[in-house]
């Protein structure tokens, strides 16, 4: 292992890691937003909108992110829609993640016992209050494990950004292999940096999951 090489290119990886994390986080934030909206639409069975959401979920879950990105980044400009690579990355991640997050929230919402909602209503809470104070908090705590699993999944998916020329960790490794032929060192740094990003999320996930088990009611 050539440590000099590693030291020299550490900053490049750090920059790439920042890009991965920043675009990943923005994409995931949008995915959560889309997921919440979609889950609400499905839960309340909003007419028309629910069909659109269903169609979107099917489309997004049954196509690979890479195909979505290629279409978005290389195909769309042909019909006059030119997005830069960063925007494409965020959009692709949000499009893909939205449906996964929606599924997580929806199953959380559905898992909340109907009795909870009925009791809250009979206590004189408005529908909005019931949602905000009773159903949502419970639903979210139920869906946390799936939610964290999705975040890890999406962070891992960011590795395909290299295909649309974003200088993420994957591209940096590939580029250094191509430039200086230091395969082992480049791959070593690649693994380390992905672990640095994803391990903490995974650890926090398992800690939170353990705590949340006590938050369940009656089980």
């Amino acid at each position: 292992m050539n440590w000099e090489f590693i030291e020299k290119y550490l900053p490049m990886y750090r920059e790439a890691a920042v890009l991965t994390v920043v675009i990943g986080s923005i994409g995931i934030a949008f995915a959560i937003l889309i997921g919440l909206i979609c889950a609400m639409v499905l839960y309340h069975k909003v007419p028309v909108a629910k069909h659109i959401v269903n169609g979107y979920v099917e489309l997004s879950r049954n196509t690979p992110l890479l195909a979505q990105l290629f279409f978005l980044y290389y195909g769309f400009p042909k019909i006059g829609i030119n997005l830069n690579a960063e925007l494409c990355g965020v959009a692709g991640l949000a499009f893909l993640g939205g449906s996964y997050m929606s599924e997580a929230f929806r199953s959380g919402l559905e898992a909340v016992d109907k009795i909870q909602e009925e009791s809250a209503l009979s206590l004189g809470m408005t529908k909005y209050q019931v949602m905000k104070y009773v159903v949502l908090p419970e639903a979210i705590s139920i869906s946390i494990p799936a939610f964290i699993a999705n975040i890890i999944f999406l962070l891992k998916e960011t590795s395909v950004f290299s295909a649309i020329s974003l200088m993420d960790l994957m591209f940096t490794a590939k580029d250094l292999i191509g430039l200086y032929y230091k395969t082992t060192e480049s791959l070593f740094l690649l693994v380390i940096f992905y672990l640095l990003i994803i391990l903490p999320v995974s650890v926090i996930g398992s800690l939170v999951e353990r705590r949340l088990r006590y938050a369940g009611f009656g089980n």
Partner: protein
Amino acid sequence: MPDLGIDVLLKGSNMLRLLQGLWVAMKISLVSIGISIPLGLIVGTLMTTRFKSLKVIFRIYLETIRILPQLVLLFLVYFGSTRALGWNLSGEMASIIVFTLWGTAEMGDLVRSALVSIPKHQYESSEALGFTKGQMYYYIIIPQTIRRLLPLSINLITRMIKTTSLILMIGVVEMLKVAQQIIEANRMTSPNAAFGVFLVVFILYFIVCWPFSTLATHLEKKWR
């Protein structure tokens, strides 16, 4: 109607080549899943046994595979293995290895959680009813496990097919690479091919994955 460049696919054997590219991807995922399911059954069952050390080893294996992006694993196996172990792997072979490692880990975990989720009283009741161990597994435990497992493993197939899109990056000529080649060879005559061809690729992935995921959802609802 602007030129969307879909007509490129009607030239020569372009459409056929695209489908062949899809078949390459399908083949890799089907072979991998074919190996992963039996291996996953074994790993999953072993993970429910009492051997602590075995459990720890499988746990580590599972977490390693899960935490690294599939693309990183592909790179490690494709480029790393030759250097570390002197194996000469083709891109296809490297993909099958990675997908099998990954599939076995996922499948093993599914099997484990399916087995664990069967309540203890099921075992106890069947014993009380005088079933032999074989009968108990054959009539009680395995049918229930399969019901829980089948939809999830079908979903795994969809995930594998989708993930095969990555193997383009280790030099396997699959659907996306063929798409690029077609666009490149026809750059002069149909400059908008990137839209049409990538659209068709997108739709083809959907056509292949959708039946699997619909079947999985259907089974899940039916057997709930």
